């Protein structure tokens, strides 16, 4: 993730963020005429401060990640998420004064149409539905570890967003099993705020609510330049009886493959989730990537890499969370230690009072 952000630092994109925000504002004004009780538009998201020391190089990132959601009548929903962050590091790597740049990105700006109970159509910019991490865990107030998994770029093509159309819904939605589908097509775009590649893909999930077990598979085909395929599989297990969460993914791309497996355990069984110890959540993630052939610019490690991440999160009151982690990276291109600490505050409030 840091590599992705670094690549974006070369351009400051504030004007385009402003345009995106204006568009979101226009949709909000439109929604003001269509509102009823319980359906007031919301501003949600989080603010955070990230500090990371990666193989001796320290950098800070203050982040604001607002989410705006506005229902437009019974069948439409406009929603967007932005990521606005500063990136501060020393001028000469590990010496010299700190200098910073601003990076803004539109992660999604989409219009959803709830066609039927089993079909939702989406148009605009949306998070590429490859695997689970990108859609479900990239929000800064959700992620348990600051850094994305090493295989994140496989299938998401580094930006993580697509510009086009998407269909999603449930083929089967019974108490015992949900079978969900997502299919999408993305057009190529070089606009700074809306970069995307021409691609198509799908994801299928088999979810067993009674066991809170999910199995799924993803596929994506890159349709510009040299066409290539990405495929993946995921497994989640979150037992009802205790606060253990196990998430894992495997992905195979044109030049590399890899996996990650993450387990978290909230100590809420010791005097409840709001007790001193119940707010603690140890996290462990193991991940590996295997380089099959050189793939410059694909965002993956250049050599086979093995990494273990040990995290300890603390859920403070009032939606504040402190995440800390230590990672040990073992790679043919060099071993290293990564220390992360972050503080995030999640907010959620209505944009105005709404009708009684």
């Amino acid at each position, binding site marked *: 993730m840091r590599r992705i952000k670094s690549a974006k630092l070369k351009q400051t994109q504030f004007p385009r963020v402003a345009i995106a925000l204006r568009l979101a504002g226009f949709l909000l004004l439109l929604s003001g005429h269509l509102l009823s009780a319980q359906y007031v538009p919301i501003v949600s998201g989080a603010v955070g401060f990230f500090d990371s020391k990666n193989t001796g190089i320290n950098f800070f990132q203050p982040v604001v990640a607002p989410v705006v959601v506005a*229902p437009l009548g019974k069948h439409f*929903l406009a929603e967007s998420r932005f990521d606005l962050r500063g990136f501060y590091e020393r001028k000469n790597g590990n010496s010299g004064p700190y200098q910073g740049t601003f990076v803004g990105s539109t992660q999604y700006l989409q219009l959803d149409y709830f066609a039927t109970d089993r079909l*939702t159509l989406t148009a605009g910019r949306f998070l590429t539905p490859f695997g689970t991490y990108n859609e479900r865990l990239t929000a800064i107030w959700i992620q348990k570890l600051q850094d994305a998994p090493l295989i994140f770029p496989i299938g998401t093509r580094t930006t993580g967003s697509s510009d086009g159309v998407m269909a999603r819904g449930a083929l089967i939605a019974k108490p015992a099993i949900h079978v969900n589908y997502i299919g999408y097509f993305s057009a190529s775009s070089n606009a700074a705020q809306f970069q995307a590649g021409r691609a198509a893909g799908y994801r299928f999930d088999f979810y067993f*609510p009674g066991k809170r077990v999910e199995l799924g598979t993803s596929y994506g085909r890159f349709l510009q330049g040299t066409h290539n395929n990405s495929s993946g599989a995921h497994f989640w297990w979150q*037992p009802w009886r*205790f606060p253990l969460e196990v998430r894992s993914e495997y992905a195979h791309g044109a030049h590399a493959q890899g996996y990650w497996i993450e*387990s978290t355990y909230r100590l809420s069984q010791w005097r409840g989730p709001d007790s001193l110890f119940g707010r603690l959540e140890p996290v462990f993630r193991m991940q590996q990537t295997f380089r099959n052939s050189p793939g410059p610019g694909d965002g993956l490690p250049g050599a086979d890499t093995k990494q273990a991440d040990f995290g300890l999160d603390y859920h403070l009151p009032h939606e504040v969370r402190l995440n800390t982690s230590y990672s040990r990276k073992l790679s043919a291109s060099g071993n290293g230690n990564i220390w992360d600490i972050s503080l995030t505050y999640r907010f959620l*409030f*209505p944009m105005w009072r709404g009708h009684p």
Partner: protein
Amino acid sequence: MKNIRSISKYLGSALPLAIFLLGSLLAWAQAATSPQSAGRTPSPPAQHVPTATDRGERAFRANCGRCHNPPEQLSPRITGTVLRHMRERALLSPQDERDILKYLTP
């Protein structure tokens, strides 16, 4: 020297996996002996007839709660909007959406 390197390599791959498995086992063992449930509220007794709120809490934990905790405070004016958002994100069924709405605005 070669042996040390091979042991180090072995530990590098097997140790984290062993820690992960041990952690999972400890979690399971603790839960199996603990009377408390994992959530914010205890599990209903066996003869309890589930209400819409119970179903809503279960639906929340089965869908939204897989990625995040419930918000600490939620204005009644925005519950519909939040649920509409989650319907798209978590592929909620209409029944789950109604149950969670009742859970969030009892």
